[in-house]
């Protein structure tokens, strides 16, 4: 009988009525009669990011603190689905905002019941409350859960979101691949330009001096020089013996003139082979330097071609794509709200609050005059 008495005492306590009984009754009415059915559609997919240079799963495991790293591409997809961009498309194509504001949705779940919470930003907050992502398993499987108030609507929102996510991933894939090849192509074009410039400079240097092959062109005057020196030597030998045998011979004077002539010619020829500017050996030096540049530029072009080939192969191997594991299906039963759980939560919270207030009040009341 004590239990009944206690209950009667509680019912007489206005605080109990206010915090437990009234909210409990309201919750029963709301959850039992008013609350709209919530339909749930689920889509499961994996975002693959095949990067030939990425560290393996095990290396990634070591890098993190014993946990696999959150896949950046998956995070990007999650961020996109939760973004204004995705909601804008949903709102334009499926009339998301209007559907959620319709009178068939109960007033507590409906969008825009309060006139000051009606803009697109508020719709975004509303929308984010009704989509959820869960990440499970080792292979970065993403599960998208969509909640809405009609079965067909729920399905179309969910499948639309997966389509949008897939389109986004494909766009990402294309841009990443284009980037890889594009950089290699730019490098190759640069190398080509440099090589052509080196060629041009070399050609100009040759044409400007009327010289095509300095090595061979130097060889001709060298032969002349050799011959002249030979002649000079034999003339001097003859002159030497003549001066000893017959110094008065008129031939001596002739030989002296001849030697002088040879020496002048020799000096002229020497100057033209190895002397100041415009000489053949000077030109050969310049051309050698230009030649080295030309060869180096050709090497750079070769390397750039090779790296372009590698980049193309990389781009072919590197793929970001969304693989659908389970497409959403049309929900036939409303799984939520958990009506009983909702009522119990309100009752439980009310009871806790009431108990705390009662205990605090009695603690204060312990203080007496």
């Amino acid at each position, binding site marked *: 009988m004590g239990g009944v008495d206690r209950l009667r005492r509680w019912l007489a306590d206005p605080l109990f009525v206010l915090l437990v009984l009234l909210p409990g009754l309201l919750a029963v009415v709301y959850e039992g009669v008013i609350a709209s059915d919530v339909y749930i559609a689920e889509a499961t997919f994996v975002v693959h990011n095949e990067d030939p240079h990425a560290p393996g799963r095990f290396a990634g495991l070591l890098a993190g603190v014993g946990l696999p790293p959150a896949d950046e591409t998956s995070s990007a997809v999650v961020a996109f689905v939760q973004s204004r961009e995705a909601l804008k498309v949903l709102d334009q194509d499926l009339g998301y905002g209007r559907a959620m504001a319709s009178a068939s949705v109960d007033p507590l779940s409906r969008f825009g019941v309060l006139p000051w919470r009606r803009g697109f930003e508020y719709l975004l907050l509303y929308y984010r409350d009704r989509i959820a992502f869960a990440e499970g398993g080792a292979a970065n499987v993403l599960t998208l859960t969509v909640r809405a108030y009609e079965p067909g609507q729920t399905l179309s929102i969910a499948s639309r979101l997966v389509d949008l996510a897939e389109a986004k991933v494909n766009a990402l894939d294309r841009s990443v691949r284009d980037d890889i090849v594009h950089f290699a192509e730019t490098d190759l074009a640069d190398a080509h330009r440099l090589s052509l410039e080196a060629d041009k400079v070399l050609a100009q240097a040759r044409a400007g001096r009327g010289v095509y092959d300095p090595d061979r062109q130097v060889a001709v005057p060298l032969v002349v020089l050799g011959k002249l020196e030979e002649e000079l030597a034999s003339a001097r030998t003859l002159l030497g013996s003549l001066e000893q045998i017959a110094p008065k011979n008129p031939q001596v004077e002739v030989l002296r003139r001849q030697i002088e002539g040879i020496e002048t010619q020799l000096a002229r020829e020497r100057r033209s082979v190895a002397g100041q500017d415009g000489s053949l050996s000077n030109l050969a030096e310049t051309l050698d330097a230009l030649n080295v540049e030309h060869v180096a530029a050709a090497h750079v072009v070769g390397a750039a071609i090779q790296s372009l080939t590698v980049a193309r192969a990389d781009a072919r191997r590197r793929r970001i794509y969304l693989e659908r594991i389970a497409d959403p299906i049309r929900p036939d039963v409303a799984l939520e709200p958990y009506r009983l759980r909702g009522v119990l939560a309100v009752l439980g*919270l009310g009871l*806790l609050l009431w108990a705390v207030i009662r205990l605090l009040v009695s*603690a204060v009341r312990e203080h007496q005059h």
Partner: protein
Amino acid sequence: MSISTDIRVTSFAESLTIQRRVVYALVLREILTRYGRHGLGFLWLFLEPMLFSVGVLAVWKLFHATHLVLPLAPFTLSGYATVLVWRNTIGRVIAAVEPNRALLHHRNVRVIDLFLARIILELGSTTTSFLVMYGALMALDLAPWPADLSAMLMGWGALSLLSASLALLVGPLATLNDSVERVWHVFSYLFLPASGAFFVVSALPMRLQSIALWVPTVHCVELLRQGIFGRAYHGHYDLGFVFTVCLAVLVPGLYLVRYVQSQVEGE
């Protein structure tokens, strides 16, 4: 004959006034007994947590000279300050009854007042030191002006409420059983990395995020940091959850306080 003054029922407002005076007196007494009248005296109340924060900040600065995604100084400070709130509040309440047992002979000094006095003192000193430290960081241009003061305030308030609730559960338990103190010391160290002081929820992998959000202090720290760093922080918090935890902890806690009171009176 007028004996009405003795029998007159004390009204709730009067009881509240008495309790307020008792708790206030206990707070003053606590300050004096703990820090004395000499030297820096009660300034140690604020200096102690402040020195701790400065030390930690210096060590962090030494090892992570660069700043991560968030400015390092306010991130570290907000982490350590929150640790101090729950650790000091709960830690101090453990030995609240024993040294003050004699005071309980006064009819109006109740066990709960001893707990409340210590809770208020700890919350006050950690709050002051946090404010001073944050102000100093702002003056040194190491911390931004809080993006959202109300969020900061709510985060700090929720943390204070949570710490007070937990203290009112751990306090009487420790009074009843000495081993609670030892367990608490171990637990508070183990709990440190999970408390949310040193990580950002949005930077965790999704699976860890949902686990981290089962820890009530994480919500408070996230809201506090949301207030400091603004919208870019992407805080994850649910004050309803924190509040529910507070209530769920307070009910057994307050019953235990009552039980301790009856034990004390029975002696």
